[in-house]
């Protein structure tokens, strides 16, 4: 008994402590020294900077979109408070991968597999992230998303296999958090919550309680969505503000519904398998390991299908994380199978090698080097200073927040919700400029582009093109002179 307990503690220490720490540290080192384009804290750091400063822009950025997900920002926030950059980014990245490796353990341990299988799966996922060559794989947000996807998928699979109440709670909670990881995960999150009552329909006893499973499984997701809408209403004045950009990028809403419906269709065979196993199991609770494996594999396939459909719809910028999640779920499905250790090792190595082909086309040039950010800021500042001592430049969107990450001057300011009239009223008498990013990839979804279509190319009402700075266009806000300015000019003419 005492020997068993000792061994259990040892396995727990190995799979929940030592291995995740070593692997997360190895990934930080790899990302820091191997990939020059990798920036710790990219995306989240800019928003955290504003949040810590307590600005409205920070709150707008946190809640106002579904492509820049709030959960990674919230996870990054404590690190940004406590540490300077880039240490904060590295620490957050490290913590996120620790969580992901812990999730691997949680996803496998229900099957009663040995500690070495868990260690192998953890190592294989780390190897896949490192060897993918995709900048998406080396982001804190990806690690968080992967960890939550594993928890949700394993929760649903364990529910299908063993019918334990804890699986409903794990899957329900993970799906709610997953939905806060951005729009590519909306469908998988909804799918996980929906599968809980559906998966229980094969057994008469659990079928009768389907409403309880639905409530318990879907309530966290519904609550998260409700809170998000409430905060959008409070911060941005529109409860659905965070979704508006999707409507702009994909004008036909039925296509988005298709993305949501597709995973359910993909899951149908797995559901049928679960019901069949459940019916055959007789008195025992759950469909057994076969149902669990079928659910996991189908979940991974539905993730891949989601990613592909989003690519077809032109929303490919967020699907790299989905691919990582799908492959991680498949690896977990492999590790949960009963097979000799050497065979598992061989199949995982093969899997990692094959996954490099999957990411073969991925670009690693997603990040911007800090020098280029500083150069843009300095050039814009110099341009404005040369024209007026009272100039103020509003840098638009999430890209703007990213641009201003290391900026310490006062001339450039972030702006998430452009209202030219409001700016003119608030900064009366000053020369105002607007810096607009090039609308490519995720930047297309910024609110400024669905509010002011064509602003980057043509400017807009009271916005005159001034200068181009790489991918940025600077526009001057044309303002009628104030009475004080007119008087000053008049006096100057008289002199």
């Amino acid at each position, binding site marked *: 008994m005492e020997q068993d307990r000792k061994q259990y503690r040892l396995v727990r220490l190995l799979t929940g402590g030592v291995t995740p720490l070593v692997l997360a540290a190895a990934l930080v080192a790899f990302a820091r020294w191997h990939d020059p384009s990798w920036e710790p804290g990219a995306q989240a750091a800019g928003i955290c900077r504003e*949040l810590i400063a*307590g600005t409205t822009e920070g709150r707008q950025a946190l809640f106002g979109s579904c492509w820049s997900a709030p959960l990674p920002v919230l996870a990054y926030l404590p690190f940004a*408070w406590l540490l300077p950059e880039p240490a904060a980014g590295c620490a957050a990245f490290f913590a996120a991968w620790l969580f992901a490796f812990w999730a691997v353990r949680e996803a496998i341990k229900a099957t009663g597999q040995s500690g070495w299988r868990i260690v192998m799966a953890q190592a294989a996922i780390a190897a896949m992230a490192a060897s993918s060559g995709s900048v998406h794989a080396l982001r804190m947000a990806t690690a968080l998303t992967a960890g939550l996807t594993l928890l949700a998928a394993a929760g649903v699979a364990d529910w299908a296999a063993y019918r334990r*109440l*804890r699986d409903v709670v794990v899957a329900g909670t993970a799906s709610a958090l997953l939905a806060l990881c951005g729009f590519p995960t909306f469908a998988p999150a909804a799918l996980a919550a929906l599968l809980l009552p559906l998966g229980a329909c094969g057994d008469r006893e659990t079928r009768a309680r389907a409403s*309880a499973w639905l*409530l318990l499984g879907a*309530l966290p997701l519904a609550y998260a969505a409700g809170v998000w809408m409430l905060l959008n209403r409070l911060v941005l004045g529109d409860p659905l503000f965070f979704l508006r950009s999707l409507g702009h990028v994909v004008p036909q809403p039925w296509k988005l519904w298709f993305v949501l419906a597709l995973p359910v269709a993909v899951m149908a065979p797995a559901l049928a398998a679960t019901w069949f196993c459940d019916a055959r199991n007789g008195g025992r609770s759950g469909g057994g390991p076969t149902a669990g494996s079928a659910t996991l594999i189908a979940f991974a396939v539905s993730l891949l299908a989601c990613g592909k459909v989003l690519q077809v719809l032109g929303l490919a910028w967020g699907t790299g994380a989905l691919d990582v999640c799908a492959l991680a779920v498949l690896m977990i499905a492999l590790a949960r199978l009963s097979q000799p250790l050497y065979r598992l090792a061989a199949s995982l190595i093969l899997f990692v090698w094959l996954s490099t082909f999957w990411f073969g086309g991925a670009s690693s040039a997603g990040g911007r080097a800090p020098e280029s950010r500083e150069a843009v800021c300095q050039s814009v500042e110099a341009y404005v200073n040369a024209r007026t001592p009272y100039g103020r430049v509003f840098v638009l969107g999430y890209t703007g927040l990213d641009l201003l990450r290391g900026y310490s001057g006062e001339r450039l300011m972030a702006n998430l919700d452009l209202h030219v009239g409001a700016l003119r009223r608030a900064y009366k008498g000053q020369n105002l400029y607007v810096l607009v990013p090039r609308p490519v990839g995720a930047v297309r979804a910024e609110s400024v582009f669905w509010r002011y279509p064509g602003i980057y190319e043509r400017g807009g009402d009271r916005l005159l093109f001034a200068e181009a700075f790489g991918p940025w266009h600077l526009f001057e806000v044309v303002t009628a002179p104030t009475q004080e300015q007119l008087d000053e000019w008049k006096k100057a003419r008289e002199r």
Partner: protein
Amino acid sequence: MSETSDQKRIAVKTTDEIDPLELSHRRPEWSASQPLTRTQKIVTLALLVGAAAAFVCWPLRTAQTLIAACTAFYVVLTVYKFVVIRASLSPAASLRFSPSEIAAREPREWPVFSILVPMYKEPETLRQMVASLTAMDYPADRKDVQILLEADDAATLEAARALTLPPGFRVTEIPPSFPRTKPKACNIGLHLAKGEYLVIYDAEDLPEKDQLKKAVMAFEASPANVVCVQSRLNYYNPRQNALTRWFTAEYSAWFDLQLPGLAALNAVIPLGGTSNHFRTRVLQELMGWDAYNVTEDCDLGVRLARAGYATRMLETTTWEEACSDLRFWIKQRTRWQKGYIQTWFVHMRNPVKLCRELGFANFLHYHLLIGGVTFSVLVNPIFWLMAAIWFVFRPEGVAMLFPGPVFAAGAVCLFVGNFVFIYVNLLGCCKRNKDDLMAWCLLTPLYWLMMSYSGWRAFVQFFRAPFVWEKTQHGLVGKS
């Protein structure tokens, strides 16, 4: 129950020679007979004066500090709740014995089990109580049932005398004296108990039939330091009205999730009011219950832990009657919360000694469970009010009280913390197969409002009438 002539009438016994206040006489430092010691009064007063002075000198800074402290407390409480619920999933959370395991032990000699049933002015429940205890699956000659009746409770005494009690049942008369509390009666019962083990049931309780056997097996399967086994409590009238629905949800979460979680963590366990099984000898050594404490069960749980003993949860249920009348519910809840305040102050007379005896982890458990829960009930309305004002009017003042990190932590508590607390109730109902109550859990914040009201009532009563025992009215199920 049949009243046949061959059944022997049990003589009513007087108990003048027993000291039911032994604990307060021999170990006054463990008793709530003095609600606050001199030092506690001075420290409390000094803290209040200090806070008032700080408010006058630095109003904004003081308010910010207090709010930051409360927010940190909320964060800790939320995380703590999560940890406890997660621990309840552990196999060590409850002791389980299936009917086949019990059958496998038969035939055997079962030890004598003492059962104490304190009653006061509830003659109508007597018959049902005797019937349910008679029906328990335990040899009749090994049951030692004492019905504890106050000497001036003529109606119940009359009803008991009129009833022919089964073998093993007896009535113990409690002489009238101050304080008029249930633990005082139980102490007399404890002194007269003949059993190796002892349990308390309320008059309206319906324990599962094999509960005594399970308790014996639990003690036999546990190490010697496990001296108390707590059964789960739940209600047999959950669907009577909204109040009983919320009450049942709360009890399901408390007894099916939180207490097992605490047991799994080897934490100090605030015992439930009934169905706690003890090794009689140890309980007598500990001088029984504190007659001055209005939640003597909670206090006893802490004293057991301080003495180095452990409590375990047993997977068996005693069905009780949920209070369905708001007035009586508020009185009952006031008593419970007042008792928690009493208990917290009693054991905080020497915090260093308490920490040494409990160990640091249990010391934290103690504060979060006994002090923390009561404190949260008291401060909740203040924060709800501030949140409501902020949502509706968005005044500058409220925003100033929550600087950056405090605002973020406060938002997490508001949106995540409250949800976690509701979800736990939902989970408790689901675990109890009470699916129809789950939707009612979504309205739990209304229940919290009532809890806060009784919390403040308890706080005031703690200073004005610390020993008043507001009795819960039972037997309302039939009436409704």
